[in-house]
């Protein structure tokens, strides 16, 4: 095996790449055990109803059925949820969306399982449902929860927006709407669990939050948190949709019943759509005012988030969306109002971009309208208002950390794709119209105030002399564990052959939060560096004892060994590994992300998740070609400039940018969860379409390096920021091409053709 240089800043191949290209990497779905049962949930299938009766007798009598469980078999509160505990594990009296689980079957094989699920007779008394968030807020609306349909209302207020509009030279107003987006990870929600002889539950599960899962399961099922062990192998994608319990509570319930037999639960693709968490659909009403020279003066907006029947992270998603509702701009007067509303639609929750995707479409659309009204270029108006360090953002937070949006925009302005745009547009073929659009976005990192964003890193010198990292945060594909290897390699002067990483196991690693919020590498990495430094000091000190040195001086760490440079003598790690006592071979350090120190006097409604102080930034540019006969939009070229602080691995950095852009293009152009009375009409990859290799162009990723002095080696998380720009950039490009602005995502061919016919061109 070639030993790899893995210093920070070098585009080293990911350490997990080899196992993944050879098929050796084991995802949760790949685990099985002798004597395994299969568990499956019977879903309600209707959006709102009272459960009259669940007759399990036929299913339970089917040969090969091990058990059939309903609400009465659930110990504990039967309530799951990350912050708000409002979701039943098994619905007993009410159904609030089509994906509610009403019974759980354990069977010897999957054929029997499928048959048994079909044999459960569920007697439902349908209730009028509510499927529109604005209707849900009316007093006469059917109630999703007895406490009312308004989950949360909040206001962010800076300055005096109402008065400030009077002072503006121009004011633009518009309404926009974005639909739900499915995370569409390729590995559906799944896990394998069993009860140990001592009563503890072990679960191997595809999850973004192993430590938090224990609390969700414990609360729902009345168990002791310590009685649950979660093991989280590499995920086949997560994107937010595996942040929070999916199979976890059902699977733990099944394991409790299975008397030591392992139980596997795997949601099929349709179930993944029906019961999984989606990006929130949002309705937005914006009003933006500026002075004649383009200086932003006031922004007001009303955002309505449809969270479906359960909160999941709805309030927190809305909080982050509202915090970003004024874009990466200096706005002295803002009034951002948000409503997070229960409906009987599918559950909305965390997804990459976490509320910011939606608001970015809003504010960026308004910026373009302002630019066109003022006769400014879309780039100039953004440059003029772009936040700089020391400014106060639209949520009233003083930016005291790296702030690179202006640098991103400047980079865009000198790029060939910006400069050549007029020529490219003029070369459109027959029946084609070309346009170019840009967008500027930001995305906060971390949990925000009220919930410490903390990680505890643990490294170990193994008996074999390897440095082992116990990761506390899952790798859902973003490559954080490769980043950890690189950080440890840099700190300890090691190549990859002397480093190894253990994916999260709550019995081995320390609580380090979730893999989410652009915080994974930042927070854990910041704990890992001091842990490695501690380990380094140990290694040098213990080696000096072996070498009988009076002082540990002149010693350095080299790959696999400690060397005393003055004498040339070496101590291999293998020797140190054998010498270290069990308690000594470990180094553990923690880190907590800084939070905003300002005290904005609004948005007190948010107990946690507001505000943030660390942001990544990006400026995107897109070339699109519109076919006048079909309305089809083809994305022809793409440029993304990203400020993510210093880059630990340029290849992984580009991977994140490319992937975020592709997901954003899917969101902008084709992805839409279609529902009718809360039932998903396209719960499959045939009709819920995501981009193929033919739909995404080559993407130029440019790294705009700032230094984030609080970040590990100066880095910031960039996993999310790139998803926020494609929709507004494409919408701007389409407007540039056809002279019409589309206000509803996704921007389908049908909507383009409709806009074109409105103009009186081709039908």
């Amino acid at each position, binding site marked *: 095996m070639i030993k790899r240089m893995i210093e920070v800043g070098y585009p080293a191949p990911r350490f997990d*790449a080899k196992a993944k290209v050879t098929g*050796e990497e084991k995802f949760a779905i790949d685990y099985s055990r002798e004597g395994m049962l299969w568990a499956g949930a019977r879903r309600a299938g209707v959006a709102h109803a009272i459960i009259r009766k669940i007759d399990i007798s036929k299913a339970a009598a089917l040969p090969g059925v091990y058990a059939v469980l309903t609400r009465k078999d659930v110990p504990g509160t039967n309530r799951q949820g990350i912050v708000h505990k409002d979701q039943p594990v098994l619905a007993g009296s009410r159904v609030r969306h089509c994906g509610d689980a009403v019974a759980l079957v354990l069977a010897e094989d999957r054929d029997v399982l499928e048959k048994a699920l079909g044999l459960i007779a569920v007697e439902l008394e349908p209730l009028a449902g509510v499927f529109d968030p604005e209707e849900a807020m009316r007093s006469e609306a059917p109630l999703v929860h007895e406490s009312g349909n308004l989950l949360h209302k909040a206001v962010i207020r800076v300055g005096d927006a109402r008065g400030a509009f009077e002072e503006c030279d121009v004011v633009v107003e518009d309404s926009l709407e974005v639909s739900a987006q499915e995370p569409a990870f390729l590995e559906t929600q799944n896990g394998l669990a069993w009860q140990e002889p001592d009563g503890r539950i072990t679960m191997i599960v595809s999850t973004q939050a192993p430590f938090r899962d224990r609390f969700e399961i414990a609360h729902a099922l009345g168990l002791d948190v310590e009685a649950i062990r979660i093991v989280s192998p590499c995920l086949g994608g997560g994107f937010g949709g595996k942040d929070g319990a999916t199979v976890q509570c059902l699977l733990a319930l099944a394991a409790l019943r299975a008397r030591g037999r392992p139980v596997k639960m795997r949601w099929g693709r349709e179930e993944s759509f029906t019961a999984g968490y989606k990006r929130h659909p949002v309705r937005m009403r914006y009003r933006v005012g500026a002075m004649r020279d383009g200086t932003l003066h006031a922004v007001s907006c009303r955002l309505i988030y449809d969270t479906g029947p359960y909160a999941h992270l709805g309030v927190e998603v809305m909080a982050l969306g509202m915090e970003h509702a004024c874009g990466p701009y200096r706005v002295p007067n803002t009034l951002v109002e948000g409503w997070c509303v229960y409906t009987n639609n599918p559950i909305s929750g965390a997804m990459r971009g976490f509320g910011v995707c939606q608001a970015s479409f809003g504010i960026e659309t308004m910026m373009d309208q302002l630019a066109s009204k003022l006769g400014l270029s879309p780039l100039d108006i953004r440059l003029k208002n772009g936040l700089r360090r020391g400014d106060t953002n639209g949520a009233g937070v003083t930016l005291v950390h790296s702030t690179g949006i202006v640098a991103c925009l400047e980079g865009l302005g000198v790029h060939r794709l910006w400069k050549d745009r007029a020529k490219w547009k003029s070369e459109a073929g027959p029946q084609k119209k070309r346009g170019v659009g840009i967008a500027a976005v930001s995305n906060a990192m971390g949990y925000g105030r009220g919930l410490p964003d903390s990680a505890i890193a643990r490294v170990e010198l193994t008996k074999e002399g390897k440095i082992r990292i116990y990761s506390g945060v899952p790798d859902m594909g973003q490559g954080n564990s490769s980043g950890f290897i690189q950080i440890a390699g840099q700190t300890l002067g090691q190549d990859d052959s002397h480093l190894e990483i253990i994916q999260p196991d709550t019995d081995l690693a320390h609580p380090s939060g979730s893999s989410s919020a652009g915080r994974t590498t930042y927070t854990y990495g910041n704990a890992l560096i001091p842990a490695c430094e501690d380990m380094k000091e140990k290694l040098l000190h213990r080696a000096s004892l072996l070498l009988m040195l009076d002082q540990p001086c002149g010693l350095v760490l080299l790959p696999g060994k400690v060397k005393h440079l003055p004498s040339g003598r070496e101590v291999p790690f293998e020797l140190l590994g054998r010498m270290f006592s069990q308690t000594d071979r470990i180094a553990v350090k923690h880190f907590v992300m800084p939070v905003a120190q300002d005290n904005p006097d609004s948005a007190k409604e948010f107990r946690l998740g507001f505000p943030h102080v660390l942001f990544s930034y990006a400026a995107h540019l897109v070339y699109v070609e519109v076919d006048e006969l079909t309305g089809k939009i083809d994305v022809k070229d793409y440029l993304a400039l990203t400020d993510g602080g210093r880059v630990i691995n340029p290849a992984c950095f580009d991977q994140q940018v490319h*992937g975020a852009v*592709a997901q954003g293009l899917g969101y902008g152009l084709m992805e839409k969860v279609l529902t009718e009375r809360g039932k998903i009409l396209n719960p499959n990859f045939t009709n819920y379409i*995501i981009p193929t290799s033919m739909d995404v162009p080559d*993407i130029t990723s440019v790294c705009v390096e700032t230094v984030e002095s609080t970040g590990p080696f100066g880095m910031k998380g960039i996993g999310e920021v790139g998803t926020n720009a494609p929709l507004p950039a494409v919408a701007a490009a389409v407007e540039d091409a056809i002279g019409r602005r589309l206000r509803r995502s996704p921007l389908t061919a049908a909507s383009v053709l409709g806009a074109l016919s409105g103009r009186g061109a081709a039908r």
Partner: protein
Amino acid sequence: MKISFTLNGKQTGVDVSADRKVVEVLREELMLTGTKEGCGAGECGACTILVDGRARLSCLMTAAQIEGRSITTIEGLSQNGGGMHPVQEAFIENGAVQCGFCTPGMVLSAVDLLDKNSDPTREQIREGLSGNLCRCSGYVKIVDAVEAAALQIRREKAR
């Protein structure tokens, strides 16, 4: 039903229902979990295998159909001659791997593509991989990798 076929170069027999999906036979009977299942309906390509050298969807084949055929799964790709296939090497070197769930299918589709066309354009590569969905990468580095692999394979042949 007893089915015998060549699996990754070795004569193999299994006793399964004739209508069982091939992807399940591989994953659950033969414990070759490198082949993934993402949709079960031929829409994602995660279950791609090579049947007599051609890429096919193992979620849309019955077990009976592989009788007497030669099947290559991702586990068998690197066995031929010991080292990794140039496509695998290129995926590693070019950053074409993220979560890795689409990777086995993507690699095998690329192998089939390069077998038919040793010098594809980027557009032809995109076309050739268009049945394999990837949610992580935006495909850019995957296309880079297949381009690099093609070059490597041509070089090896020229030697």
